[in-house]
Structures are given as structure tokens and as C-alpha cells.
């Protein structure tokens, strides 16, 4: 099997050499290669080096994605465990940046996983906390907000 190496450059000038198989997890690169735009190095303008290195780390672990029918329970468990540890170490800001980068790179697996991580993090938070996290302005009038809370009182209790 060819072990073609692909060179990726981050927006801040860091270079990463990775196997083609790993690079193919990023659909944006697949498209570039198909369009023959991939010359010597592929510049990734929207991803900084620190984030790109994390993403590559994740992609390398997932390069041989087991299919649903794969019987290897052990391997799946190990991978899940690695995934959990990978996210645990990261702060929310980094995870947000990973989401943006995974979206840009079109790396669906990581985008889904990171989105799920954020979802799990915010699911028990109050609306105020969520506004802070996503930098959202509250555009309800106090009366409107009261109305909605009354309708959904059960979501604040149980």
C-alpha cells in the first residue's frame, strides 16, 4: 500500500506531515486532491497549528474506523475510552475551535463527536449560562421570558 505523505500547513505557518490515509479523513483535502490543487503542501488558512495538531491526533486514531458489524468489542471500547480522555483534557474554547476547524476541513466524525461533547456539557445549564457561552443577547422582554418559562416550568425542576 502506498504510504504517500501529505504536507499540511496551518494558518500560522506550522507544518504537519501525515499519511494520505489520515488526510483523506478531511474531505476538503480529498476534494483538493481530486481537483489536483494539492501541490507540494496544502495550506489550511482557517486552522491554527495548535488546533490542527489536535485534529490530526484524533484523525490518526480513527483512520481505521471500525464498521458497525465489526465484532471487535474490545477495540471499540478502547477507542471510546481514548476519545473520552482526548476531550477531557480540552477546555471549552478549544473544543469550539475544533468544531469550527472540523467543519472547515469537512471532518464529519470529529464534528459530530465534538458537537456531542458540547451538547453534554450544556444540557443541564440554565438559559443564562448558555447565553454566556454562546455570546447570545437575550432579546425577550421580561414578560415574554416569563411566559416561556411558565410554559416550560417542568424543564427547570425535575
Amino acid at each position, binding site marked *: 500500500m502506498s504510504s504517500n505523505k501529505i504536507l499540511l500547513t496551518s494558518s500560522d505557518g506550522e507544518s504537519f506531515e501525515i499519511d494520505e490515509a489520515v488526510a483523506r479523513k478531511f474531505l476538503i483535502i480529498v476534494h483538493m486532491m481530486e481537483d489536483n490543487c494539492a501541490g507540494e503542501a496544502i495550506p489550511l488558512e482557517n486552522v491554527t497549528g495548535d488546533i490542527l495538531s489536535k485534529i490530526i491526533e484524533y484523525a490518526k486514531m480513527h483512520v481505521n474506523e471500525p464498521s458497525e458489524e465489526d465484532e471487535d468489542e474490545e477495540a471499540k471500547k478502547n477507542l471510546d475510552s481514548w476519545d473520552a480522555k482526548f476531550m477531557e483534557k480540552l477546555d471549552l474554547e478549544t473544543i469550539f475551535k475544533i468544531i469550527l476547524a472540523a467543519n472547515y476541513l469537512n471532518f464529519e466524525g470529529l464534528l459530530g463527536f465534538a458537537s456531542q461533547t458540547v*451538547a453534554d456539557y450544556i444540557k443541564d445549564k440554565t438559559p443564562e449560562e448558555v447565553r454566556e457561552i454562546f455570546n447570545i443577547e437575550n432579546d425577550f422582554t421580561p414578560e415574554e421570558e416569563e411566559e416561556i418559562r411558565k410554559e416550560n416550568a417542568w*424543564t427547570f425542576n425535575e
Partner: protein
Amino acid sequence: MKRKSRVTIRRRRRRDMCKSHEPMPYIPFDLVIEILTRLPAKSLMRFKSVSKLWSSLICSRTFTNRLLRVPSFIQRLYVTLTFLDNSQRKSKLLSSSSSPGSDISTMSSFVVDRDLTTPSMKGYYLSHVLRGLMCFVKEPSVKIYNTTTRQLVVLPDIEESNIIAEDHKNKKIMYRIGHDPVGDQYKVVCIVARSNDEFGELRRYLSEHWVFILGGDKSSGWRKIPCRSPHLPITQILSINGRMHYLAWVQKFDPMLVTFDFSSEEISILQAHEDIRWFKSNPIEYYGKVALLNLSDLKRECTMNLWVMEDVEKNMWSEKTLAVHPSQMDIVKSTSLRVAGTTRNNEVILVPHNIRYTLTGEVIVEPQNTTLLYIFLYDLQKNLMRKVEIKEPPYHTKFWDVVGLDDVENFMYL
């Protein structure tokens, strides 16, 4: 190919996941949607008050449709319990879920985890649940309840109905929720019928069909649907693939299969096969087709009769007699069972029920044999029943019933 991406993250001393002082990177809205579609219903309902944009998104049809596509691994069984509390009769509506990770073919126990009882349900009978929506009836009144958002709406009275207005003792009213896949709308159908006052050969029926669109413009109200052959429904109603089906009499004792299409709102009537026994026949879904499962001989002879509509154009039916496996015969001999729908993997839901009929034709609900809650799932092809238990009810009573199985989270605003 997609692996389940749910991973439990130990939320230990994550000092501060958010680096203070620095604003978080701006997440464009389409990526926020990726996060929102992975939230449980309760969180989504709470986050409606985050902003107007979030509120309109969470209620929007596009969003709820996206959610419908994310397969829900959680099946829900809805249970009603009736018991005495300080000599006051109380009824509770509870929701139980299958354990996450168990799939539909292996699930064997459910755990009660939600109490959905609302005072406005008092006195109403829970008729059925479809795609997250429940239909409560107290003739002639009907209420629709969204099990996900917990919104309860009272539908307006059908003021223009002649039959409802009459005080006739043989009046029958049935309501059914259905989904129109073409217009992506949820509709409620009301069938009201009674016999004419003739006897014998001259016995005929008067019936009306009314439709109400849920979540739509309230001013449109109930609309009458024309039907060329008035009839009396004589079985439960089955909803599949955007249509509903039931057996009915145009003429007494002569069963017809009536079909109502939720999209075109047309009623079609087909003669049922002459050998079909209508008494104790239950319309069910059999591998995508309309079928009738007859339980008349179940207790006595441990057999069931299945009629499948193989070809609608030619009105061709096939028939099969299913014999209960010898190892399972005492189940059916000791407990009366009724049909409560089918699961996504074609198992028939059988619920124990203990009812008797008085001489005047009234139905009396007797206590069940046990306070333990359970149902059976019957695989028609393998001819095997398996027991599914519902655990941890907050009250123990012998008056319980399982209303239905559902796995859809529906965020629509009624």
C-alpha cells in the same frame, strides 16, 4: 457506518471549562444546530428561553424533522395506573423507557422514569399515542398532548355535527391522530356514527367524518369529509404510511375495510374477504402491509388468525393460522391479551387486560392478575412471544394498562 458518538465524560473537577475573560469563539448558527440536535428534549425545551432565534428554531418544523431522522434508540412504553389514595380514586400516566444501548429486538425491560399526569387529563381516557402525540378522549371532547413538550390543547367542539348533537344511545365517536407525509402535517380525524332505527335487513348507519389540522391556523377548525357509504367502525383504527384503516359495517355483519388517506383526505372502502371474522379482529401492520389479527381462538385453542392485504388494487388477501408454541401456551391460556400496535421490527404488542361485558353491553375493567407491569411482544414470523417488563412504578396497583409504544420525540407546537 456511523459509530454511536455518545461518550460519557467524567465531569470531575473540570475547574473551569471556560477560560474566563476571553470571549468564546463565535459559532455560526448552522454549527449551533449540530449541537442542538444532540440535546435531550428537556434541555431543548428549557433553551427556548435563550433567545427568539433559538425559540423559533426549536419549534420549527425543519428542526423537528431533523431530530426525527436522528434515530432514537430509546423506546417508550406509556402506562396508566389507577389506585385508591385515601379513598380517592387517582389515575396516573407514566412514561417508561428502554435502557439506552439495548436495541428494539433485544429490549426486555423498561423503567418508569417520567410522570406525565396533568390535572387536565382527569376524566379523560387515553386512546392512543402516535409519533409523540397522545389523544385523550372524554366523549365528545378530545384533547391532544405532546409527550415531548408537555403541551396539552383542547380541540374545539364539532359544532356542526348532527350526530354528536343527538342523544342517541348507539352513538359511537372515535378520534385518531395521523400524519400526512406529503404536507408534513398532523391531523386529527373524528368518526362519529350511529345506527338508523330500522331492524334486520334495513339496518343501516349514519356516519360523519371530520378532520382537524394540528398546529395550523386555528380558525380553520373541523372540516367535514364526504363519504359515499356511511358506516359504523367495528374495530380499532390502524395508522400506517400516512393512512388509517379499520373494519366497518355498511350493512350489519358484513365487514368492509375503510381507508382514510391523511394527505388526500379521501375515504375508500373495500369489501373485506368473506371469511374474515370481524369480531376481535385487530388491524395491524404486517411488514408494511395492512393486516387483521384475530384473537378469538387464542385463549381456547392457542391459535391466532392473520389476514394480510397482499394487493390493494385487486383486493387480494392471504390467510394464515398461527399456532402458539407449546412452551408458551400457558401464557395465553392464563391471561387475556389485547393488541396494542406493532413495533418497528414487526412484533405485535400484546397487553394483558381483564375486562368483562355486562348483559347490557357495558365494559367493566377488572383488576389484572398481578401488580407487576408487563407486555408481550409477538414475532409473527418466528411465532414466538417474549415478555417485556416495566419496572419501578411509583405505585403498585392491579388496575394498570399499557397504552402504546412510541419512539419519536416531537417538538411541534400544537
